[in-house]
């Protein structure tokens, strides 16, 4: 699994490349945890290069989402491939996770969520 990390204003944008599966989720969690330790709490995960995600990968996304919400942070996922979008749809994880079809939409959604979380 590879990570391409950048910033878009206040948002950490992580483009993930590789499968998000049982054998690799610890890497993904560690990458986000490392950034959270540096007090970053707004994240956009770009999934356009994730060809495959299993239920462990989904569980990791759910766990990260909860962890960030607990810290008044934000997690947005964007541009899932068809196979990954199917995992979100069939499990109804779409109800809990913020998912955008493109990266610009993801950035927009993340800022909307940030503004929502700041107003609470």
């Amino acid at each position, binding site marked *: 699994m590879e990570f391409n990390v950048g910033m878009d204003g206040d948002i950490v944008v992580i483009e993930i490349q590789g499968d998000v599966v*049982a*054998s690799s989720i610890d890497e993904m969690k560690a990458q986000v945890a490392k950034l959270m330790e540096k007090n970053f709490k707004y994240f956009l995960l770009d999934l356009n290069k994730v060809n*495959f995600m*299993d*239920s462990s990968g989904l569980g990791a996304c759910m766990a990260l989402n909860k962890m960030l919400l607990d810290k008044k942070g934000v997690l947005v996922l964007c541009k899932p491939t068809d196979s990954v979008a*199917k995992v979100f749809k069939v499990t109804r994880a779409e109800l809990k996770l913020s998912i955008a079809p493109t990266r610009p939409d993801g950035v927009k959604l993340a800022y909307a969520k940030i503004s929502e979380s700041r107003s609470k």
Partner: protein
Amino acid sequence: MADEIVKLRLPSTFDSVAAVRTQTEALLKDRFGASASSEIDDISIASTEMMNNAVEHSGTEFFDVEITFDNCAVVFSLITEGAEFDPTKEIKMPDLDGDETHEGGFGIAMVKELSDEMMHEYREGKNVFTIKKIIKGGIG
């Protein structure tokens, strides 16, 4: 059905799961083409969850896979030795409608959602967990 059968025996590891998934996808893409990509995704996700379950819970050193297909359907069987364990019992997709957050429990529920038939048999000391997926339109 069965006009083509692929049999594999692999160590019970996540690397094997990835290897079977890659091989299954390649086989089915070659056989059914891009028009069946949605069904191939379904088989790929469902079979991965079946194998993950075996790697995590069967406690066996190896697992066996049989992939059988003709022009309109694919049957994927996972065979593990050991005590009887039926993963198809009490399947329930975690309820995400409420406030509660779920991080697990999706695997076998996804297998059920993504396959057209799902069955478990215990014979000669082996668990045989099978799914069938109809390829809409098929070929030929």
